[in-house]
């Protein structure tokens, strides 16, 4: 057991550090942001320029094999890079779906032509990808999706509606899951496609979130034509393709659920007064800080354990479901505690109260989304109960019936 770098890791860290110092600006505070003041188009252009530099240096796909355009490094090197990059101002989540979800799926299931065509431009940031998976009637029950893919010669004609598609309004490409066979049971008969987002028939509309933000979209598909050469993986195997996507995502999510909310709580509690003394001296506040640390750093440690397993060629398994379950809750509880520190004044939104309140307030209002997106609390618990603990799956009547007969 060793938290220190191996000599190779230390060398790589130093190299990365030098490169970052030469190519990016160091972060001075939590509120310091890449591209502050830019509009969306300018921000995307700056993000792409950054990603191109990063790809040129070989850091866009550190753990991917060289044959795929990667650096051929170890997962540990990927972690080292991430730790160092976090200290600098870099684009926030623009390439997360591209490089964390879509491209790994293309790398795993794509034809040589598809890989040739899509991997490098995505690494460089020329192409940004989105993932067209969820539908209004297919959230937790993704197998229930109804977007229809009908074969027409060498093409497929796609119609339906997707929802919660992050980045669809600026992505060039998407992976798209649709039902190509209505006579098979629900999780069969699905096929995955690569879709050019400029194809006629695609209508992207932003979703107004409960947090008053617009990070997601509804995507309406109306007779969208996709050549069969853009099919990703075998016809009817879309479910399997998607599971491999989600497995990637589950692990990548881990990092989103750690964080330093507990440190923010300390600062805010020092600046708040309870009964004439700093709130940080109150025993319940201190217990809340301790609990935030236990959850957030606990999640980080579980992810590090998973990383160590990857380093040894093992696969971190379904037990990673605990990460999201615990992490999203930590946002909800810790965010609420931060807001409570100020009493009535804590109800003033950060725009008027001060930048240091922005993140905790945002965590609080977006925590309900975090508990739903990427698999609800209940889905995570089912995963643990069934895949880790070996408990029986829920009795189902819909698993083996032709999908056609399930539609109401």
């Amino acid at each position, binding site marked *: 057991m060793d938290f220190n770098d191996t000599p190779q890791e230390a060398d790589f860290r130093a190299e990365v550090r030098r490169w970052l110092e030469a190519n990016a600006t160091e972060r001075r505070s939590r509120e310091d942001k890449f591209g502050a003041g830019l509009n969306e188009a300018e921000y995307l252009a700056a993000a792409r320029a950054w990603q191109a530099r990063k790809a040129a240096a070989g850091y866009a796909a550190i753990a991917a094999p060289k044959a795929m355009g990667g650096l051929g490094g170890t997962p540990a090197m990927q972690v080292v890079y991430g730790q160092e990059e976090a200290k600098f101002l870099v684009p926030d989540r623009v390439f997360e779906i591209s490089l964390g979800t879509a491209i790994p799926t293309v790398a795993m299931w794509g034809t040589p032509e598809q890989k040739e065509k899509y991997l490098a431009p995505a690494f460089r940031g020329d192409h940004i990808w989105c993932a067209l998976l*969820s539908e*209004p*009637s297919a*959230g*937790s*029950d993704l197998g*229930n999706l109804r977007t229809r893919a009908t074969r027409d010669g060498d093409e497929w004609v796609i119609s339906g509606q997707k*929802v*919660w598609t992050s980045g669809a309004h600026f992505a060039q490409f998407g992976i798209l899951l649709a039902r190509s066979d209505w006579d098979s049971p629900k999780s069969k008969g699905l096929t995955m496609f690569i879709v050019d987002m400029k194809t006629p028939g695609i209508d992207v509309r932003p*979703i*107004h*979130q*409960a*947090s*008053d933000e617009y990070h997601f979209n509804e995507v309406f598909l109306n007779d969208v034509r996709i050549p069969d050469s853009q099919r990703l993986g075998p016809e009817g195997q879309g479910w399997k393709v998607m599971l491999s996507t989600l497995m990637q995502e589950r692990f990548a999510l881990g990092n989103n659920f750690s964080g330093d909310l507990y440190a923010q709580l300390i600062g805010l509690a020092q*600046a*708040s*007064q*309870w*009964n*004439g003394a700093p*709130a940080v001296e*109150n025993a*319940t*506040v201190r217990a809340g800080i301790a609990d935030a640390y236990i959850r957030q750093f606990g999640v980080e440690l579980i992810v590090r354990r998973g990383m160590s397993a990857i380093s040894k060629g093992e696969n971190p398994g379904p037990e990673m479901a605990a990460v999201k379950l615990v992490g999203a809750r930590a946002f*909800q509880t810790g965010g*609420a505690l931060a*807001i*409570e*520190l*100020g*009493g*009535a*004044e*804590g*109800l*003033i*939104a950060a*725009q*008027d*109260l001060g930048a240091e309140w922005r993140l905790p*307030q945002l965590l*609080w*209002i977006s925590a*309900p*989304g975090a*508990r*739903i*997106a990427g698999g*609800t*609390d*209940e889905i995570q*618990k089912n995963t643990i109960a069934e895949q880790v603990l070996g408990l029986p799956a*829920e009795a*189902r*009547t*819909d*698993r083996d019936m032709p999908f056609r007969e*399930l539609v*109401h």
Partner: protein
Amino acid sequence: MNFDFSEDQRRLQEEVRRVLTDVSTSAEVRTVLDGAAAYSAKTWRNLADLGALGIAIPENLGGTGLGHLELCLVAEEAGRTLAAVPLLSSIYLAAEVIKLAGSEAQKSDWLPRIANGDVIATAVIDPRTQTLAKDQSLTFANGALTGMIDALPDGMVANIAVLLVDDRLVLVDLAAPGVTRTPRASLDPSRPLAKLTFAGVAAEELAMGNATSIARRVTLGAAVLLAFEQVGGAERTLYAARDYVLERRAFGRVIGSFQSVKHKLADMFAAIEVARAHAWFGAWAMATDATELPRAAAAARVAATDAYTLAAEEGLHLHGGIGYTWEMDCHMHLRRARWLGQIIGTHHLWRETLAAALIGEAA
């Protein structure tokens, strides 16, 4: 012993509910949420016309002359419909303080106009022992009010403010020279906040009786009344979620048939039952001015804050993705639960109040 509201009170509650359900719709609340209005004038007008604003104000002062039990039921319905109106500041706090601490002239000057809704008051009469501001302080000397106070509910629309300044209760006309108001973005935009500064503004004292003990008593009453708003809101979210899970299907069945969903709703129900029980006890203690009021009010506030927070968080969660959109009302309850739960001090502060009351009684 009869631990229940009377049939007359129940009929009154139903009438209020009927009107508020018609008037304080989601669309109406959203005019405030989206910033098009600072409060729902229509809801306010309807409550005034019903006699609900003056329900605990004597008839000779323009009120309906009923009492606090009836006001509790109005609060429950306002909470249920997310009513975007200054009930807390104008009715639960300002009117109650003026009733107890105002001279005959002050009472007859303000209470009839508060009761008919023409005058809106904002008020802060708790000592704000949880605070961020170091420079927030008011002084009142020689009839002049000076200083700043932040996070005033309804501060932009109020005609007057009732404030606890050191050990005195002060009423100030906000149209007077020297008053500066700044809107403050609120985590529940349907319940706006403001910062007010006073530069030697002429103000009058509400000087009948002991200001500190009146302020304390009215604050305890407000805790009970907010508990009714919270219970109303919590129950609304419980049944909205219940209705949704009976419609939404996944894995071949309505999701309301999944045990995890059922048990979550049962937990919400149990929390609300406990909160309701304490709210009722608080109502009795307030209405009879019982010695149990401090612990009854504190318990009502804590239990109701916990119940509404749970119901709003889990009610949204049970809606899944759609619950996380601006168009659904789930986030309005989440925001309102937080606003109601903090505006007169958080559950932490009120747990301490409750503990202190219990330990005091045990001594």
